[in-house]
């Protein structure tokens, strides 16, 4: 009888211990979500659609609370710093940032990286070293495409369409924002690809927040080829295609929006180079989640894939899979 009582007591104690163990698992295993602020220019612009899709997908996977900051143009380091400071007051654990234009941004972001984990996307922070070496990069962690390669690939495509020789042909280049790493690298990549082709670069202009590319283009000499290295400028140009339809200028572009694909399909450009923006979003959160998980983890740079699209490629299964992320 006594033995039965003892067995019952032990069983009760065991059951209580198990209950306490599971209860504690339920109540104490729910860690608060880490908060990651994303600072990119014109954050609502459709050029970020695929990137934001990637961010959100990874944030779901890693249980990260994403705060995509409400922004319009971020013209310089001071504006970017103000946005960062606001988020520092907003209990942010880490940052995903597109570096603003200017040589002073690198220092500011490096100081930030000493306080909080930082991943750079789309555009690296510009360093003075780039003047000596176009491949120079900041010491910050980067998840972005190889912008030099994108420019180079675009140049190669122009060459391909001309049997590798562009003797006597003229080219106009529409770059992105001045004093940005991605613009400089894309421009240099393009020029290097066309270096021995005999092509004459008639003029170069840069898109800006305050200038309309079409207004500037009106005053530029007609060219045989137009290389547009910035998504907004490319879309603007294709929207107003009639203003270049009077001549035989062929457009080659780097784009990051579904609109640019639409214009490729419409035949308003010959070729489009695109980055896997979804991958950039996903990988940046993936990397930051690892950093936030363990203090010993050293974040890695990721080079995002790029694709070269022609009109005839748009409806292939592979391209459609890629473009699905842009919807």
């Amino acid at each position, binding site marked *: 009888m006594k033995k039965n009582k003892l067995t019952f007591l032990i069983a009760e104690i065991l059951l209580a211990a198990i209950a306490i163990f599971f209860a504690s698992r339920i109540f104490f295993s729910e860690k608060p979500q880490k908060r990651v602020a994303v600072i990119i220019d014109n954050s609502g612009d459709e050029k970020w659609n695929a990137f934001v899709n990637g961010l959100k997908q990874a944030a779901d996977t890693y249980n990260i609370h994403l705060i*995509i*900051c*409400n922004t*319009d143009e971020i013209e310089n380091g001071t504006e970017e710093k103000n946005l960062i400071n606001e988020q520092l007051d907003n209990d942010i654990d880490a940052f995903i940032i597109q570096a603003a234009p200017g040589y002073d941004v690198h220092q500011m972001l490096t100081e930030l990286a000493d306080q909080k984990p930082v991943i750079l996307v789309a555009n690296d922070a510009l360093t003075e070293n780039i003047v000596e070496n176009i491949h120079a990069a900041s010491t910050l962690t980067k998840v972005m495409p190889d912008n030099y390669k994108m420019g180079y690939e675009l140049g190669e495509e122009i060459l391909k369409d001309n049997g590798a020789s562009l003797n006597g042909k003229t080219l106009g280049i529409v770059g992105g924002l001045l004093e940005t790493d991605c613009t400089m690298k894309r421009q240099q990549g393009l020029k290097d690809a066309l270096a021995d082709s005999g092509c004459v670069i008639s003029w170069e202009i840069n898109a800006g927040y305050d200038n309309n590319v079409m207004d500037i283009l009106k005053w530029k000499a007609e060219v045989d080829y137009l290389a547009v290295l910035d998504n907004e400028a490319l879309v603007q140009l294709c929207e107003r295609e009639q203003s270049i339809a009077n001549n035989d200028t062929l457009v080659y572009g780097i784009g990051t929006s579904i609109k640019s694909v639409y214009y490729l399909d419409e035949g308003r450009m010959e070729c489009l180079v695109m980055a896997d923006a979804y991958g950039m979003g996903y990988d940046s959160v993936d990397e930051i989640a690892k950093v936030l998980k363990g203090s010993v983890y050293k974040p890695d740079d990721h080079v995002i894939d790029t694709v070269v699209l022609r009109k005839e490629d748009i409806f292939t299964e592979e391209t459609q899979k890629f473009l699905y992320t842009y919807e």
Partner: protein
Amino acid sequence: MKKHIIMTIMLFLMILIVLTGCGKSNNEKQKTMRVGVVLYTQDDAFINALTDCLKHYFEEMEDENLKIIMTVRDGKDDQSVQDDVVEGMIDAGCDVLCVDLVDRTAPSKIIEMAKKEDIPIIFFNREPVREDLMQWDKMYYVGGDAEQSGIMQGEIAADVIHADEGCDKNGDGRIQYVLLEGEAGHQDAIIRTDSVVKTLMDNNVKLEKLSYQFANWNRAQAENKMTQLIEQYGEEIELVLSNNDEMALGAVAAYDSMGYPEEKRPIIFGIDGLSDVLVAVEEGQIQGTVYNDKEGQARQMAKLAVDLYKGNSLTGYDFKDEKYIILSYKKVDASNIKEYIIDDTGAAK
């Protein structure tokens, strides 16, 4: 001992002066106002033009004390997506919301979220149901009067028909027409359609409806639908009434792609006053449109948003029912088109 006390008091006062001085310089810093603009879609040319105007007016209202950041997001024509977008914007920090609803009957979640965070909402373009708008005193609507746009479209069309007997191509005394409507069940589409037809009849134009098609305010869809209508009715169509300019341009594109000569085309009318349509009116491809005052609406929205942010008095506004700012439409046809066409210098031709 006395010396010590005096020294301590002086030190305390100095610290106080320094601290209050710092406080003052902080107050003098430029304030940042964040405006979240959420569209029903980013594929509507009129809404995009209005958004550009809004951006322009916000930039004009910036000064050394106020920086305005306007973020535009897309509701992707899906109310639940728009709700999520608003939630994200509020989460990231937002002072005023400007919302063009996907579904005018379903703003509850947006209102609830904004009310919780005390963020004023200015609805525009798509008018919420009156009962919803009256729920909270920090909600407003800025837009046009849909009925007025339909009436004006009818009046322009009636004038053109009465002035040119050739509009009645088959000479049967009736005008055979087709309608390009916005969305099924959409309040503006219904009101514009009803009022334009009623106005034409009130102006002694005998009508015969051949068909109608919904083209979701969209140029490409309108081109497809119009192509089908042309294939079915051919030259029987004497009049195309479109609920907006984008669809009117779609109708023109359909006739262009089918190679119709100008003399065989019907008269076409739109609403909104988009720049492409103004050019088409000037060239005679479209006979008239009704100018939806996007500049006026954007100016009122920008001004209201800043006043709400600053907590200024709203006594200077021409509110209807303390909630509505309604701007008038204007008729545009061949007689006054030059007032609306802007040349490269930004001036009317």
